[in-house]
């Protein structure tokens, strides 16, 4: 199935949106796990 330029633009947009959302989630998890580790180690 051939994509129209319009479809291609939407595809890129939503892929970018998902990538940004995933990056934020991963970053938040890194911060959370770091905080949990500090609490566990010092507790």
């Amino acid at each position: 199935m051939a994509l129209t330029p319009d479809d291609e633009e939407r595809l890129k947009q939503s892929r970018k949106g998902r990538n940004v959302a995933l990056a934020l989630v991963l970053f938040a998890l890194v911060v959370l796990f770091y905080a949990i580790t500090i609490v566990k180690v010092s507790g």
Partner: protein
Amino acid sequence: MNTVSTANAIPADWRDFFALTKPRVMSLVVFTGLCGLLAAPGHLHPVLGFTAVLCIALGAGGAGALNQWWEADIDAGMKRTARRPLPQGRLRPTDARDFGIALSAASVGIMGLAVHWLAAAILAGSILYYAVIYTIWLKPRTPQNIVIGGAAGAFPPLIGWVAVTGDITLMPVLLFAIIFVWTPPHFWALALFVQSDYAKVGIPMMPVVAGEAATRRQMLAYSVILLVVSLAPWWVGGTGAIYGISALLLSGLFLLLTVPVAFRRSGEGDSMRPEKRLFGYSVLYLFALFAVLVADRLILGQG
């Protein structure tokens, strides 16, 4: 169909995944979970407390996604739910399923490693209960589905409490019981005034199956039980008088608002004001009751 081929070609937007988690239901889950955590005796480091509430929210989101994955065809047939991402074809069903499983597994794993394995086990049980026992098995089979589903919504304060104490005592079970008993009159009030098409898609909701009059009688019974159950934490000495007196007033008003609903029948073109009033109050009631529970503990320090 056009929508299906588009869904295969265009990757889903992150907002569609977010919508799968039922964010509006989550607000009540987060609030009651947090209250269970704050009302429990003992101390939990704020970072771990935050993690526990986050895991309860993630678990609820995962269960919500699995629910929407399973019910996509039912949702498509009802006005209220037809605009969800799956019936609209904006998302592949397998993606929704995997997303739900991933959220659920992550929430249980993090809860266990960071907070407590008993809390994690109950969280896992509540997700399985909602996604499998309720959604897949009993919701399409019995008009008691709301009573059964209410148990799923009753888990958050229990999990929050156990995250702090590490064991199950009478108090968190009573908190569970309060939400369990509160759910049927809360939901049936809504079911009475919302023109729902559950019948069309084959879900046996109580007002459709047993009739309006029977539903109204059962709502009254649950409201009476709610008055008793909501006072139980005070009677067993788990809370002080701040909670006890507030619960008496709040549940008394709940019963007072249920009485006119129980003893009337709706006519043609009925504005359904008593039902709407009861539904609106029921949401406020649960927030207020749990807020008072926490206030009681913070001020009187009992439990």
